[in-house]
């Protein structure tokens, strides 16, 4: 089993920082806007959609997709910055 190259601790801290950011957004759009705040947001309309309902049935899903690609891109950058990327 080889030891990780580069600054292991800094790399792991950067990774955990990114995870925290993404998880906060993940939580806010689904549990926050879609569930807890839904009654309040429903007074605002997005076309024919009440906004809270839209987040619960459409919006959160679009944001999840965007989050994963954002994470993959940022993580690739962090890998290169700390010189632990593949090839």
């Amino acid at each position, binding site marked *: *089993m*080889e*030891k*990780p*190259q*580069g600054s*292991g601790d800094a*790399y*792991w801290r950067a*990774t955990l920082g990114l*995870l925290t950011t*993404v*998880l906060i957004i*993940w939580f806010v759009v*689904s*549990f926050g806007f*879609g*569930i*807890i705040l*839904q*009654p309040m947001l*429903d007074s605002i309309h*997005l*076309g*024919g*959609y*009440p906004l809270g*309902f*839209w987040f*619960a*049935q*459409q919006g*959160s*899903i*679009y944001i*999840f*997709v965007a*989050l*994963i*690609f954002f*994470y*993959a891109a940022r*993580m*690739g950058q962090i*890998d290169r910055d700390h010189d*632990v*990327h*593949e090839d």
Partner: protein
Amino acid sequence: MDLKTMTYIVVGATFALYLGIAFWARAGSTGEFYVAGGGVHPIANGMATGADWMSAASFISMAGLIAYNGYGASLFLMGWTGGYVLLAMLLAPYLRKFGKFTVPEFIGDRFYSNGARIVAVICLILASITYVIGQMKGVGVAFSRFLEVEYDTGLYIGMALVFFYATLGGMKGITYTQIAQYVVLIFAYTIPAIFISMNLTGNPLPQLGLGSTMSDGSGMTLLAKLNLVVTELGFKEYTTQTMAGRLDMFVYTLSLMIGTAGLPHVIVRFFTVPKVKDARSSAGWALVFIAILYTTAPAVGAMARLNLHETIQTGEIGSPEGNLSYEARPQWFKNWEKTGLLQFEDKNGDGRIQYYNDKNPEMAAKAESFGWKGNEMVKVDRDIIVLANPEIANLPDWVIALVAAGGLAAALSTAAGLLLAISSAISHDLLKGVFMKGISEKAELRAGRISMAGAIVVAGYLGLNPPGFAAGTVAIAFGLAAASIFPALMLGIFYKRMNKEGAIAGMIAGISVTMLYVFQHKGILFIKGTEFLGDLGPNWFLGIQPNAFGAIGALVNFAVAIMVAKMTTEPPQHIQDLVESIRTPRGAGGAQAH
């Protein structure tokens, strides 16, 4: 050409296609079964993961649940997509770096213990079998309609087919077959939705149609109209109703998300992509393909509900002519009556169909004054909504046939993936890994086939008496995976200090609490009559339904594992080095054979 012939042709053609691909892929990749994913582009792998993932529950059940639970069913939409964010960030890249092929194998190595591996196998089997029951229900529903037989007969035919398919197609070139299945199922799902959205709102995109104005000249938005129609019949308001309150919804969503990230047949897909980098983006592509169906489903559900009520309640509520005469019922109604999944009873003997919520006291009183004697649609199985939808909307026969083929593709691809996970857990992890280390390749394969057959029989038996709608049954499977596998994997990666004692105690505590809670309300092993607390709201802990309890089980797992780990010795140095090494991408070998 009549509908039945058309259905036979379309379903037959798709099956021929899958078998053809399975045969072609087998010829191209002999001996490379385990690394088949290695040469597959992340987009293709994402598409295959989508087919593997989207089961009968997604395809057949979910829109029906949305149709009847409105906003409350959002928990399925968020729960079954949000889990991919967790999977992509917390598990997939690290498990890929570790580079083994089954989930129990990782748990056994990381926690340096065959005991942990065996506990993981048991948890995996419990979750997967429960999941297969849900698929069996879906297969039974699809076949009963398609062959116009009783549900039970449909289920037997489905069992035979799943067995044939899983042992043949499941072992070879499964990735390419699943890509074809994805294409079939996504067309089958979206084409009717586009037609119906056009009819109702003039907007061809269902995602936008659901938020558009009705094209019937009423000037109302579709959702406002639907709210009006259902509340007038005594049902709850569509855009605000919940299934069992907001806390339950929160916990249920969390349970599905964690469960998604803990289901072994999905996790395995990320073991064989070429690089750690690909494991991350592949989860994103999988979610893109899943999202196409998941953002269409809310439109399908809402529009089907609206069409159904407007078909039956043709005129003003309470006027004698306002309800559809039973004699004049459409053909789809007759077809579904044959399956027993749709039942009508003329309670007030007026020869017309009254469909309303007689549990609502206010509505019941009003109905009384109309001379209605109770809701006459005594059974409307939610699982028929998607399959009946194109018929309700009068779409051409080929669309209806395509939907039948899509439903079967969804159920079969997932059932095959799950059975493969079960059989590899038994033959690879239990037999080869622990109990019979010297077992030959041939004997391992035979053990795999036997355990697969056993799993089908058990799932089929329970499918005859399922503990809920297909999606409800599947939700319990997610709860079990959430309470056992996900916490063990996550702690194994993110908590270096986690040792074997903690992991084993955590998994056992998590899955026991969840099973106990499910069984006490749903019957031991889901057998009716053995439940010791009724399956009723007042008996639920904090009002949380059994299907949603996995998140609580996961919390118990985390808490017990961390407590026990703190009280016992820390893991040996080479295990701590192993954890360091899986945290960085460099040095990931090619997808390994074994």
